[in-house]
Structure formats: C-alpha cells, structure tokens
C-alpha cells in the first residue's frame, strides 16, 4: 500500500550513495491517506457515518430481531419512556418493578428508546428514518455534484454568451433563499421522497457550478495547460484530462459538506411538514410533532414525558451533519497538496 511507502521513508536497495534514486515515489493518494490517518477527528467522523449507514442498511434485521416495527401503532402505549435505563436498573437489581411493568404495557416488546404519540417504537423509526434521510441527502448531493461540475465546466469552457446565460440563471435562483424556493416548489408539487431528492439536487448545484467555473478559468491560463495545447491537445481533452481532475479534490470536499447541509435542509422541510410526508419516518418529520410535546407532562407524576422524542432525532441529525462537515474539513487538509507543504 502506498501508505507504507510514505511511512517507511527511504528504502535502501542499492548502494548507499544511490539511496535517493531508489526511494519509492510518493503517490498523491498515498499522501492523502497518510495525512488522513493522522487526523483522528476525521477518522472518528468517518467511523460514525459508517456506523450510521450500516445501522440504516440493517434496519430491517435489527428491528426484526427486537420485534418492533416503525409503523406499528399501539394506542395503549403512548409516550413510553426509553426502556434502556430501567432495564439496566433491573439487571443490576436496583429497581425490580419499572422495567417489567413497561414490558407488560408494551406487550413483551422492549422499546429501547421509547415510543411516540401513537405508540410507535422510536428506535425503529430512527433506523428507518436514517435510511430515508441519508439516501435523500446522498443522492441529492451526487446529483448536484454532477450538475454543478457539468454546468460550471461548460460555463467556464465556452465562456461568452453561454457563460453569461448560465451565470444569470444562477444569480437569479440564488437571490431567493433556498428554503423559500423549496417551500414554493414543494407546495406546488406535493413531494414524495423521490421528487424531494430531485428538487434538492436540482436546486443545490449553484455553489459547485460557480466554483467549477472559476477553476476552469484559472486552470486554462496555467502553464501546463498551455503546454498541453502546444502539443496539440484539443479543448475537450484539456477539460477532461487537466481541468476536471485538477478540481476533483475540492469537488469531493464540497460534496461531503453538501451531504451534511442537505440532511439539514431535508429535515427542515420535513420538520415544517413540507418534506417527506408521514408515516414514512425521517429524522426531520420525527421532530415535527416533538416540538409540541415539550410541554407534555404526566398528569400524576408531573414528569416531562415527550422529551425522548425531542432529543434522539435531534442528536442523530446534529452528529451526522457534524460528521459530514468534519469529513469535509479533514478531506480538505488531506487532499490539498499546497496546504501540506505549509505544515
């Protein structure tokens, strides 16, 4: 692996005085990976995203094993508190009453993170919600990346009129705050998860396009582009072999940050009731009603009973979005060869 070559430093194969000649070359990817390996925070963020993604993929198996379903309602068991803590107390012999009582109320099924206003299991909904939220964000980010790179490269490549029209289009659409644009579109066309993904993707590529256009202008004037042109490379070849690969690292970074931002945007829309419609769970629409339950107290004990519905989806959104932002920052450091030389 390239990483080992970097860490191993100079490899002695031939005579001592020829050592510099036999030193294995450092590849770009190898350097990036080596830098990532030293960046603990980014590794934690990547680990978190991988775990969430695996949990989302295995949502069916996990909920099946526990015996809960995301949409199975149970009116007799609304607002059950998370089973986790009473279970630990039961197992430690501290409280032999609470946990069995909860099990009795839920019909023998443990609701590890409690139930919502309809008696649905929150853990199951969080896992299935992760599926919806993550896949919408990932697909929309991929879509906006492709559109942004394509349109931006086109604007920078053709210049002139085409560039003017594209920039005018982008300037127009970015004057309306994105969330309003999405509210307008979503109120006209009631969204499904698929159409919502498309809206988010089609309205999210402007930043990438602007960046790409700027980069095309920049790279076109560089010496190596001139050299490529001098040896007779076509514009198309220069685009494909020099301009786009040159921009790729930053595009990867932008896309990682985009995924985080899109999770936020999707959850805002779903929170407002204008995104993915219930009963399909997403982290955003799970918070949609939780907001009202802040005030809800048990009539006898006066304890707040809706807080677990507020806390868990919010924690998931925050940590996932934060992870994607941190991954973006980490990749920026790892992929930027200029920055590395400064260190």
């Amino acid at each position, binding site marked *: 692996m390239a990483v080992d070559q970097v860490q191993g430093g100079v490899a002695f194969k031939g005579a001592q005085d020829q050592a510099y000649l036999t030193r294995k070359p450092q590849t770009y990817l190898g350097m990036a990976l080596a830098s990532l390996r030293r960046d603990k925070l980014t590794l934690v963020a990547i680990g978190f995203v991988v775990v969430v993604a695996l949990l989302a993929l295995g949502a069916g198996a996990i909920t099946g094993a526990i015996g809960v379903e995301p949409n199975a309602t149970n009116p007799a068991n609304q607002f059950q508190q998370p089973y986790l803590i009473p279970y630990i107390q039961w197992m430690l012999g501290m409280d032999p009453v609470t946990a069995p009582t909860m099990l009795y109320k839920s019909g023998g099924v443990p609701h590890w993170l409690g139930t919502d206003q309809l008696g649905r299991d929150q853990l199951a909904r969080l896992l299935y919600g992760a599926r919806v939220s993550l896949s919408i964000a990932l697909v929309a980010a991929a879509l906006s990346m492709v559109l942004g790179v394509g349109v931006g490269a086109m604007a920078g490549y053709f210049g002139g009129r085409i560039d003017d029209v594209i920039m005018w289009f982008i300037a127009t659409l970015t004057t309306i*705050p994105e969330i309003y644009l999405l509210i307008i579109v979503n*109120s006209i066309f009631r969204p499904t998860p698929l159409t919502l993904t498309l809206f988010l993707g089609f309205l999210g590529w402007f930043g990438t396009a602007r960046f790409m256009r700027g980069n095309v202008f920049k790279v076109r004037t560089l010496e190596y582009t001139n050299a490529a042109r001098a040896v007779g490379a076509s514009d198309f070849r220069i685009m494909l072999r020099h301009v786009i690969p040159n921009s790729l690292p930053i595009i990867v970074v932008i896309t990682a940050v985009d995924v985080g931002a899109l999770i936020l945007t999707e959850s805002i829309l779903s929170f407002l009731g204008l995104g993915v419609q219930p009963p399909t769970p997403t982290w955003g629409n799970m918070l949609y009603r939780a*907001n009202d339950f802040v005030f809800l107290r048990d009539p006898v004990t006066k304890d707040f009973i809706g807080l677990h519905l507020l806390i868990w*989806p*919010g924690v998931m959104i925050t940590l996932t979005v934060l992870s994607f932002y941190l991954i973006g920052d980490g990749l920026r450091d790892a992929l930027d060869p200029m920055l590395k030389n400064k260190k």
Partner: protein
Amino acid sequence: MTRYIIRRLLQAIPTLIGISILSFILVNAAPGDPITMRTFGDPRMTEEAREILRRQLGLDQPAIVQYFAWMTGLSVRQGDQVAMMTTPGNTCGYIGAINVTVCDGGGGILRGDLGTSIDTKQPVWARIVERMPATLELGITSLLLSLFIGVPLGVLSAVYRGSLFDNLVRFFAVIFRAIPIFWMAPILILVFSVVLGWLPTGGRQTVSLTQEFNLGDRIRHIILPAAVLAFGGIAGFSRIMRTETLEVLHTDYIRTAQAKGLSPNNVWFVHAFRNALIPLMTVMGPAIVGVLGGAVVVETIFAWPGMGRLTVNAAFQQDYPVVLGAGMFFAVLTIIGYMLSDIFYAVVDPRVRFD
C-alpha cells in the same frame, strides 16, 4: 462613486427580470385551471361561456403576451377587439396605427399588485406588508446580535491564537453550524420557558384585549427567537473575522505599526481590526439571506407573526399567490441587501470601485 452605484443598480435589472420569469413559470405550473377556479359551481357556465372568458383573460395568447400582461396589467391583442375584450373591470382602446387592442385591467406586478390571496381574498401585498415589520424586527435584532457577539469573538480568537479561548470559540463555531435550529429552539423553550419560566414560549407580545405597546414585554418575547436565529450568524461571523484578522496581522503595515513602537492594543484593535472588518461587508448579503431563511423555522416554532410563518401557512393551504409573492418579495429584498453591501464595501474600500 455615483457611477459605481448606477452600474451596480443596472446590474440588478437582469436578475429582477429572471425572478419575474421564474415566478411566472411557477404561477402557471401551479395546479388548478384559472377558469375553473373562477367559475367553480356556477351552473350557467357553458362551454361557450368558458371559451369567451378564456379569451377575455388572454389565456389563448402566447406565453410572452401573457407574461407581459401579468407584469404590467395591460393585455394586448391583434386587431380591433374592443367589444370582445371589455369586461366590467377594465378599459379597452384600439390603436389603429399598429392594429392592436390594449386593455388596462389594473394591477400587474410592476404596479405592486402581486395578486389576491386564495385563503383570505386580501391582496397579497397587503398580507406581506402586515407581516413584514415582525420579520424585520426579528431579523435585524438577530443580525445585530450576531455581529456584536460574533465579531469580537473572532478577533479575540485570532489575537489569542492557539489559546484555550481560541479553541473553544472554534469548537462552538463548528458545533453550531451542525445543530438544527428547529432542535435548538424547543430545547431553549424547555429550559427557559417551561422549566425556569423566565421567558414566554412564543408570540410577539402578550395577548391582551388592548394590545397596547409594552417595550419590556416585547423584549422578553424577542430574546429567545432572536438568540436562536443569531447562533448561526455568530458562528459564521466569528469564523470569518478570525481568518481575516489573522491575514491582516501578517501584512506590512501591521509590522510597521509594531516597529513604530505602538502598543499591542493599538496595533490590534485600531490597525488590524478596522481592516479586517472590510471583508465582513461582502458576507452581509449572504448573511441577510441566511437570516431570512432561518426566519421560516424560527417564526414557525415561536409563533412569531412574520413573513416566514405566513409563507409556511400559505404553503400548507396551497395559497400559491401568497407563497410566490413572499418568495418574490424576499428575492427583491435580497437583491437590495446585496446591492447595499456592495455599495457600502465600495465606500469603505476605494479599491473596489476601479475594478
């Protein structure tokens, strides 16, 4: 300077035209046939009568003519069609020289007529004007909050670079970028309103019969929503100010100031701070957009009677004229915001004008 301002004003025109075209497309994409919506349940409407109404409304015309009519309130048709086009609500005239009939039905976007709300039958403009002060009050308060907190935090964190304070500021700047405001808001309501009981849970003022103005009451109501809305701005401004201050600290004139023997406070806060403030002007436009976007969520949670809440409610009731009118209004507001920040930038930094 005047030339720069005029040039900047002219640059806004294509964007405004773009916004109007976009809105026109969306108006026509909205479900519901305008004829059916006007005549729903009217037994006298024959197919023939509908056809006449369609022609009177100009719906058989090319899109560009319809766009013109929607913008100006003037409908145009070839030939002498005065008799056919006259309705109780308009005045028509035939211009022989160019062989067209022109009808003035009043209204039109350019005259400030954004249509009529389907829900309340009020003009959209009236509904926007009614809600605008609340949104401006909230938006300006939170912008000021984020400036007065975020800017000093950023400068101090650059001056004491690498210290615990710097790391804390940067840590929170990252965290607050990721926390959804619709999650932070209920938590703050829970703590400050429900548990501690210090602040009201929502609204712009305490509901009473007289509804008289009470400054203390207003301030108590605005604290939570403005704070929630300001968190993002504080994080953003502190990050920008930190970067800019660090950049300025490495310039020649700072070294000169230090070499002259000025005190560190003088160097940092008089020389560095003032120059680091300049790039802040360029992010004011995006910051305004951010606040207006965040207002949708904050107003919904805190029952703040502003435009964001109006838009969300209208979207629920499928009151498209209001949703679109609000969107257009925000677009114009944003364009003005960007323009002012550019002009102000040119005032404080003369280099910009000669680009």
